[in-house]
């Protein structure tokens, strides 16, 4: 891929999520992204487009299932006579996928969820997943590595762990390999992983794919490896590290959405038509100083959905995050996280920026 010039090598290797420690290692079944939550939007013509990839630790599936439960409790008649697809199967499917990627020779693996603990903002979801999957929820302090094997501390003593659905960033996983100040991780975990004694989901280093600059190259990467056109297109993207992309961006700052490439949660995004002159001037300076750090896209007129605002129902912009699970094969949850920008006219749906969510039905 690098040799053939599909994507600039430094774009991947200089990425802060790139883990050279993974070079020369292939995880079981070649599966890297066991849990994928790609963000989709629908444009004014009704086309679904990929807005963003989430291959690191996509979250929000608990909202999908809880929203459905709430909806059915509040409006029990609504789904009567409708062939509504069930979202409750997620936990079982996730357990199945994770069981399939267990280390070779382990037939009845112990699968655990590794959480940073009760003070993490997503702790609710970790609890939820543990309940839905029926696996133990553990923290770093509950795991220990002996001779490159991972064990959990139980009431019976140490028991081996084979698959870890980790909800902790790469950097904090193992203080011996990554950040030495991490108290959330398990010393020696990465070596156990590289030796093939334990499987981590998602694989280490998948965060590279979340990068908004890497995103821009995804259609080319798909074509290169599969010789197929992507089924879902990207939002057309100007890559500021390429001279042509930079020129287009700077010439149209007031018409485009400009995003820093390494940020998550909607931070640093400037929506040109809504920005003040001063904001645009500031942005221009930043893009010029460090073009590699930016991409720009035309403003996609995200589809709207009727939303209860105070006592009224008003249109609000939405996007959709379906969840895909991959073990031996891929299963897609028949539903998804529909996120709503609660502010009138806003295109920012992230929950960290005050966004809401909606129950989403797949019928048929």
């Amino acid at each position: 891929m690098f040799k053939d010039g599909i994507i600039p090598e430094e774009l991947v290797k200089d990425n802060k999520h790139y883990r050279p420690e993974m070079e020369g290692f292939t995880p079981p079944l070649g599966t890297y992204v066991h849990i994928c939550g790609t963000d989709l939007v629908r444009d004014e013509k009704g086309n679904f487009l990929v807005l963003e990839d989430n291959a690191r630790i996509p979250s929000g599936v608990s909202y999908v299932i809880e929203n459905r439960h709430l909806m059915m409790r509040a409006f029990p008649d609504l789904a009567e006579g409708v062939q509504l697809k069930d979202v409750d199967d997620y936990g079982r499917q996730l357990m199945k996928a994770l069981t399939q990627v267990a280390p070779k020779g382990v037939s009845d693996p112990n699968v655990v969820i590794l959480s940073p603990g009760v003070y993490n903002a997503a702790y609710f979801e970790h609890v939820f997943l543990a309940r839905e999957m029926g696996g133990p929820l553990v923290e770093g302090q509950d795991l220990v590595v002996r001779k490159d094997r991972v064990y959990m501390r139980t009431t019976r003593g140490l028991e081996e762990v084979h698959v870890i659905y980790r909800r902790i960033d790469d950097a904090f996983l193992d203080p011996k390999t990554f950040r030495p100040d991490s108290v959330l991780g398990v010393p020696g975990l990465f070596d156990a992983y590289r030796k093939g004694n334990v499987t981590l989901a998602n694989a280490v280093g998948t965060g590279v794919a979340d990068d908004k600059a890497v995103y821009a190259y995804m259609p080319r990467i798909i074509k290169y490896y599969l010789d197929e056109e992507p089924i879902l297109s990207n939002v057309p993207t100007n890559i500021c590290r390429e001279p042509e992309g930079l020129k287009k961006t700077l010439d149209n700052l007031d018409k485009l959405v400009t995003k820093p490439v390494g940020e998550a949660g909607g931070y640093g995004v400037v929506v040109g038509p809504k920005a003040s002159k001063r904001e645009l001037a500031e942005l221009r300076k930043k893009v010029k100083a460090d073009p590699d750090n930016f991409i720009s896209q035309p403003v996609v007129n995200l589809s709207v959905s009727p939303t209860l605002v105070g006592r009224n129902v008003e249109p609000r912009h939405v996007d959709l995050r379906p969840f895909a699970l991959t073990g031996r094969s891929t299963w897609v949850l028949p539903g998804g996280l529909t996120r709503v920008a609660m502010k009138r006219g806003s295109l920012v749906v992230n929950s960290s920026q005050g966004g809401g969510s909606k129950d989403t039905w797949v019928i048929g």
Partner: protein
Amino acid sequence: MASLIARFGWNIFWLGRYMERAEALARILDINETYARDQPEGPDWKVVLDLYADTARFLESHDKPDAASVSNFYVIDRTNPTSIAYSIAEARQNARSVRHLISTEMWTQLNMFHNRLSELTQRDIRMNNLSRVCADVKMDCQTFEGVAEGTFFRGEAWCFYQLGKYLERADQTTRILDMGYDRISAHDAEGRDSIHWSVLLRSVAGYHAFRSLHPAGSAAADIAGFLLYDREFPRAVALCVERVTARLHELETRHGHQRRKSVEDARRALAFTLETGLGQRVTPTRLHKFIDDLQISLGDVSNEIGKAYLTSI
């Protein structure tokens, strides 16, 4: 099913303990307030402080033990590790760590209880309201217990929950007896009838049962015997010890645990103390000594369970 993570066993054990502790404290504050109704000088709050060996610590931050300061100290002061508010906050924190192991209904009930308690102010617990607040706390603790009974999966985690609960309950019964016995026996000696024994029994919901067993009598020794040894009475120490024994046995027979010698030794020592320690003629001095021994034995069992099952290696 994978084994229980030791740390979660610990959380569940303490969830059981803290819920029981909060309920017992509500009972004790309630009786102490009720005792005072026939005393012109009002309740003696130092008794409660002594019961929990809190006097010195209390006096560090308060001038004298009066109704307002003591009820504040024991009901709403979250910085006091022996208060109801503290126990429920700890119970909730432990429950939060094991939300995936307890039922959603248990969590919801405890969370709402915790929120109600957090909203209480000094005004809410003033003297003529204290009894009602204590009744509410008791009711919430019992509701939790009922929800747990009806929804908590009877796995290994349940065993540790029950162990925590019954060890704490036994300990608290000894404290309630300790507090009430002096007053009752003093009245016995004077040959006076006293309301104290009935207040004591009512505080542990044992009045009716005791009356039916002892229609005529109300001797202090009978009450002590009832609270300690009556295996039909849910708060009797003997019944609690029986439950602890049964749950430890269940860990071996149903959950595949090896017998832990240290735990078994401590349990036997507790049973021995309970059966032989009090002797035939009960005097206040002997009772106090006996209760001290019991509390130490209960503490040993708790510590050994913690070390054998619930501590990370």
